[in-house]
């Protein structure tokens, strides 16, 4: 069993290894999983994404989600990684979890809507896009992209 430092923070060297991380998490009582620093794991996963080490990022994020399955940022980033890896069903699953946990992250909601549209679920895409249009404040770029998606969905439904 791994030992935790007294402040509850996990050092980098420990958390880079998913197996160890999972072991670490299991060694904690269930209600304390979230105390392992998911923010640090997220940062690490982001660095891996920037280095284009998507597989490594995926592993870190899956580990982070073992620690805290309610981490919306971890689900959101995992969605991006899975999408980039071409694993669309896994990307949808991850994005949907992210949006369910935190719908204030409108960029992730739009990514999910776009993916729904691309994978043959136009109703879900349109529902999310309508909701997004009403939720957007001070974000012209997001509004524009959402409207583009809506237009595309309307054209394809007419077609």
């Amino acid at each position, binding site marked *: 069993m791994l030992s935790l430092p007294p402040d*509850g923070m996990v050092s980098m060297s420990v958390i880079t290894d998913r197996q160890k991380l999972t072991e670490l998490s299991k060694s904690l009582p269930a209600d*304390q999983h979230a105390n392992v620093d998911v923010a640090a794991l*997220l940062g690490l996963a982001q660095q891996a994404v920037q280095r284009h080490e998507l597989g490594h990022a995926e592993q870190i994020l899956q580990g982070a989600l073992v620690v805290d399955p309610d981490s919306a940022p971890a689900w959101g980033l995992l969605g991006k990684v899975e999408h980039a890896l071409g694993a669309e069903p896994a990307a949808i699953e991850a994005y949907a979890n992210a949006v*369910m946990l935190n719908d204030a992250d*409108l960029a992730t909601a*739009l990514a999910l809507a776009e993916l729904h549209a691309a994978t043959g679920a136009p109703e879900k895409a349109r529902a999310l896009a*309508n909701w997004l249009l009403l939720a957007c*404040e001070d974000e012209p770029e*997001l509004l524009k992209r959402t409207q583009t998606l*809506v237009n595309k969905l309307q054209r394809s439904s007419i077609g």
Partner: protein
Amino acid sequence: MEMPRIRNSSVNTAEPKPDTLTTKTTAPSSKTSTADSLESQKRPQAPDAGAAASADVERAPFCKFPNPDVAVTSLKNLAGAAQGDAAAILKKSADAAQKTRAGTIIQVRLGQGAEPPDGEMTGMLARELRNDRNGRQQVRVIFKPDPGQGGPGAGHPRPIEMDAAAFAGVPNNASVTISPSGDVGVSVNVANSLPLANMIGTVQKDGDQLVLVARNPLSPIQKLPLPGADAKLVGKTIIADLCSPLSASRYGLVHDLVDTTDPLEVRYAEVAIESGIPATFPAEVQRQVEEIEKTAKLEPKDGVKDLRAKTFLSTDNPGSDSDTVSKDRDQAFSVEPRPQGGHIFYYAIADVRALVPEGSPVDQYAERKMVTTYLPGFDLPAMPRELCEDLMSLNEGVSRSAVILQMSIDKDGKVVEDETQAYRAIIQNSWGGSYRAAQQYYDGKSVPGLGDPQKHELDLVSAMAHNLDTQAVKRGMVTDRQDGRYWSERITELLSVTANSEVGRLLDTAGVPTVNRFHPPAKAQKLDAFARMSQALGHAWDPHQGALSEYLAKLDPKDPVSASLAALAMRTNERAVMSTTDQGHTGLALQHYAWSTAPMRRYPDTAVLQQVLALCAKKSDPSIELPITAKRAQQIVDRDNMLDNVQRKIDNEIGNIQTAKALESHVGHSLPVHVYMVAPAGVTFKCEDPRVEVFVPTRRISGATGQRLELDGEGTSLTGGGVTFRDGDEAKLTIRSVKVEAGEVDAMPACM
């Protein structure tokens, strides 16, 4: 409901000032405007939040803290100190408080792996609680960036977690600017946020000194030394003036005792104070008030008319469901028939500048605070109560200085533009009643104290307001008419909207700098989305066949689907902000709009009135200089917009506490509700009795069904795992538990 009382003393026999005001539990956010209530519609808020949407008008005041006499009395009595000593301590407190803003840049090293921002970003600092691995609560400070930063395609910038210890003394919800600093750090500029002025807590003994200990784990300061405080205070809840809040050597000086039997009221005060809203007045402000009290004279003079022969009335209180009457009466009205048809409308507005010169301590304090903060049952005023509830307030039966906006309203409810005047006058309010009392008169019931002249005025103002209302609907003002408010309350709204619009027009057409209330037009994309959603809900709105306001006016007020549609329609609104440019107010369908009718509780109104008076006086004396420059107007706009964000957070938090309180007695029971609005993260249910909105997270529902729920039906339903929640659907909600002070409600649909 008992009010929290800041008492002169609890150990002597001095009684607090009697305060006869009582109020029902009513959300402070319930008085926000159509455009301003958008945020509160995203999440369940207080009871009545759903009824909030109306026009962009006055925020009616709640009752107040009793007059918090300065600490001299309590220090003298409690500590047994000579009054001179106490006064010296008080002066030291005030002087120190003025010098605490020297250092406002905080350098923070980010945690492992955390990414510093690419560049400068603005946002808010929020404190959150999490448990550590030993089950102890840990405070985290999160920087939440404002949306729309980072350039095209950047999407939502990510929140950044900060070292909580570095932010001791920085208020909750502080508006800050962060920028990268070094390799793994950020510098956080807190200069723009409100400085922390007070702390509420319990006095405890810590070694050989007394300390003030916060009740709230999210308080910006957990423990504050109280040098010189008396041991008799141990165990008491007090309010302290803070000295050097950002420094490690911060300390507090006892201001007064807080005496209440209801811990929730202390909680409400905490929410505001911990966000930097000051609850006490510095000594120099009190000194100016004393000076004003000694020297203020009210007499007609050049340029000041005597309108005391006219019958002025006021109706002003927290809302239709309350019998309380405001003590800070900003407005009174008098209406007379216009010979050419229609009415002549005299709107008397409290004349702040008659007593408080620009740049004086009271004025500076009011500008820093910007608005009166309304909390359930009391308020934290922008000006000392001696002024806003007495010497400046248009109270019943006393002569007061007022700014008169004299407008002619034709029989169609339009302002006759070239007949508008603004001038100073002395008036006497003959009846200050509540909305309920005025409505009783309109409903044909007898109202004590209401004489024939007042009844005649109420008839005239009602007739004029009907014309204004007809005109408002015709021009396309978006109003939620299902909010259950009295006609008497809507009258006040129509009067203020008319006055603000006319003041805005006067200033803007003259091209002079001013502070406008700008409500941007709804974006076409949002209206299209609403049209699709309305169709999905079986009440299609066709934008080509009529304005949204007309569509909303036709909805059945008792139909839950209509309530959801009205709420969705309100979300097409953009948020209203202050602006130096005149761009109109879309929700009110007005080309010009400048707040001017509540100067005692909104600082921008004072500036706008000052400007409009000067503009009107300039017609007869061109040498008169306009007092508000473009730069000054911009300063006021920036500060007001920043503080508006803080106020919204306070309103949200208070609303959540009130909702939890309202549901406390229903724990273990199921309540009839309807689905008010669905979102990816959850369902907002609306309950009529008690009147609350309750948000149930999707993850909770998904946990029960074993499947994730997702939006469907053009965004009007949430479906998954064999259950569907559709806007307007009837449902039952089981209240499992509540944590009142935390504002948390655990509820589940009874079908789960």
